[in-house]
């Protein structure tokens, strides 16, 4: 299924993450490894939207790879859906 992965680096830590000498090649390698179809950086890379084609079983492994590189949990936005006001885990 097609997914849009959204990664928002907190303003307080974004500069140090993005300024790391090897961040750019690591980020590009990550995008390649997870099979990114496209990526859309905003605010000098602090906000990233990454287009993916992934099966449900790949969602957590992809998120883990991102988390280990940037220390932020990505959110997946498959398409427009009602706001998840019930909470983060279940009902």
């Amino acid at each position: 299924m097609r997914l849009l992965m959204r990664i928002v680096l907190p303003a307080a830590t974004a500069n140090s993450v993005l300024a790391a000498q090897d961040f750019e090649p690591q980020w590009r390698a990550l995008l390649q490894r997870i099979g990114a179809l496209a990526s859309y950086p905003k605010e000098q890379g602090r906000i990233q939207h990454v287009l993916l084609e992934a099966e449900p079983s790949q969602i957590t492994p992809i998120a883990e790879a991102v988390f280990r590189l940037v220390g932020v949990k990505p959110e997946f936005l498959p398409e427009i859906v009602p706001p998840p006001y019930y909470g983060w885990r279940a009902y």
Partner: protein
Amino acid sequence: MTDGLDMRRLLSPLGAERFFAEHWQTRMALLPLAADDLAFIRATVDSLDPARLASAAREGAQAWVANDFVAHSVFPINPQNAVQFRDIGATLYFVNVPLPALTDSLADFLGAPRRKVIASLFFTPSGGGAVPHFDKNENFTFQLTGAKRWQVGEAPMVPAAPDGYTLGSSVITPALAPLLAEAQRPPERTVDLKPGTLLYVPRGTVHHTGAGEPSWSLNLSYSPSMWLDLLRVGLRERLAASPRWRGIVTGAGGDPAARDANRLPELLAELRALLADPEEAEALARAFLDRPDG
């Protein structure tokens, strides 16, 4: 086995009269179901197969995923991938599964439009839970399998809440904002739901949940038609049929000659007569509730 959902019987440990007097829209109620009633509900719901339910859900199905690496994310699911999402630890939410034997019975008991009562099913994985929130619907939850712990407010945080809200969220509807500004969060009570328990939670009541084991629950919810809507929509529609009420506002001040065209006093007299007539009031309510969006 019983052949229908008899709400009066379900509420018998409390009493239907006491339910409406002391709980309806004001306070949660926890009730044990008779084995026959649980068996009937289970048989009516039929197989708890995610693929089948994803296919049946009229308003779609969702998977909610959140774990150590994924921020809370909502995925629309279909019969092909529903089981895959369950297997990765997602909560599954099947919205508006047609179960008229249950929803119509509840609507008829409440004296509510049948189309306003819907059935939804939740699969909650082990370790799942929900952050504190309140809903805009009157909710009747039947625990079908597994166990789930709820923390439920002793009273609504926002009585007759017009919208739902997740505590701490910056997303607040305009209708809710002024009510929320003055609201205090009432103390909560712990409620353990096991198969065969019915929990009624009024809208506006804060609750959060946690499941120590996989569980299925059925939610019958009434998305209320408010009395306010009856006046706002129903009465407006009724009055709009009259050329007098469609007349232009004139003579609120202005030239003395224009004041002669002020029809407000006679219109108010007409409105008072309309509202004072029980048959007219009943017809007004009926016409409103029979509307597709009533």
